[in-house]
């Protein structure tokens, strides 16, 4: 049970950094709606490398999306979309990292997380919120954007992880 206090420490630090970064990012919106760089995801990607247990990782994602949602307008709306998306994204990142540990870096892990996240958001919006709107067609464009932002986030995360030693 030695791992327990260690993980909680890491989670609380990463979650708080992630939430702060999320707010900072919301202060400076990009010209294109719905597309954000996603710097708040840097701590999540780092978490995938630091935390070895999936449940703690999911806890990190859950805390992040819950608190960000509480302090933003349209709480339920954001929670319904963000909460499951981030958990599924973390699931993908975790197993991808586990399976390809020696042959991949945080860059592709982050890209996978980012692409899965946006795809999940689309699916949830389509299934739950706007049924009568054919906008799955624009998903590929968002995926392309997600590859780019995911790679940037991954690159930053990778540098931080490498500096650590």
């Amino acid at each position, binding site marked *: 049970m030695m791992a327990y206090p260690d993980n909680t420490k890491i989670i609380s630090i990463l979650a708080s950094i992630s939430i702060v970064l999320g707010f900072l990012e919301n202060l400076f919106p990009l010209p294109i709606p719905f597309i954000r760089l996603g710097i708040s995801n840097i701590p999540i990607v780092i978490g995938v490398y630091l935390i070895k247990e999936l449940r703690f990782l999911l806890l990190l994602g859950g805390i992040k999306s819950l608190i960000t949602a509480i302090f933003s307008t349209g709480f339920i709306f954001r929670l319904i979309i963000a909460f499951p998306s981030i958990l599924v994204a973390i*699931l993908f990142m975790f*197993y991808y990292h586990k399976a390809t540990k020696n042959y991949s870096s945080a860059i592709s892990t982050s890209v996978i997380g980012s692409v899965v996240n946006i795809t999940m958001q689309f*699916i949830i919006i389509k299934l739950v919120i706007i049924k009568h709107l054919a906008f799955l067609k624009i998903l590929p464009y968002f995926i392309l954007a997600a590859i780019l932002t995911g790679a940037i986030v991954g690159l930053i995360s990778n540098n931080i992880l490498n500096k650590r030693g």
Partner: protein
Amino acid sequence: MPNMQKLSLFLILIILFGCNESFTTKPFFSMGTLVEITVSEKDKTEIENIKSEIERLSEFVKEETNKINVAGKNEKVVVDKRFIALLKKGGYFHDISQGRFDITIHTIMKLYGFPEGPYKVPSRSTLDQFSSYIGFENLIINENFVIKKSDFTIDMGAYAKGWIVDEAINFMKSRSIKNGIVNAGGDLYCLGDKNGDGWKIGIQHPDDKEKVISVLKLVNKAVVTSGDYERFFIENGKKYIHIFDAKKKETADNYKSISVIADSVEMADGLSTVYFLLNPQEIRSLCDKLKTPVLIYHLNGNIEKLCGWEKFEVN
């Protein structure tokens, strides 16, 4: 645990592509037009039944109409109750158009050769003679019979097709078909949805049938377009279209096309003709009252969207 990864990917793929039902469309000729029925692959076997239902109803309207048209003045004509309801609907459209819409206008329209052709402009004296017969008030409607007070003929082509489509949709519902389209030459009803999404309907451009002027997403709604471009002829520089104003007793080339969204095809069908006979102000106040979105394509090419048409549009 790598199995879990595969499983979640598989689940996402299923959500994305798996639950889409495929639809099939069958065309056939009926009601003097090309009818297209779209149903899901599993309801395909019902198409034949829907088709014979449409043909039966089409024959019914034709026969009952004919009974009235061949009857003499003051003769008691017994017709089916459902047909009485259809005639009364004609009275409703007559009222809301302040008498401009009138099913007895067929009396002079047939002199021009409408609807089948060959077309010609009748002589003034013939027109004057037949014009005096026109008037919905000359048709006395009782519970199960009608009496003609003058020698007119009727045609309910302006909305009977819509009624038949509505009946076909009711038939489909009784066969527990939940999703589909019945499109009778552009008068169509969208039943249910298409894989959770609305049916995508284009409104044809009056001058260029390769273009559309509006794209709609419809669920359980009817849309009908009346235009001046499908049945018409030109003589001595004047365009004679298949829509006639019963008050002026002449052709009414007021717009290029008018499309109406309503809850039933009968309503959308009749209203598209009624609106065609009204001026834009009158259309605005009437569609507001009836809550039926309208798209007007003016003769000069301007497009006007009224009473919430935009709410049904996509892109």
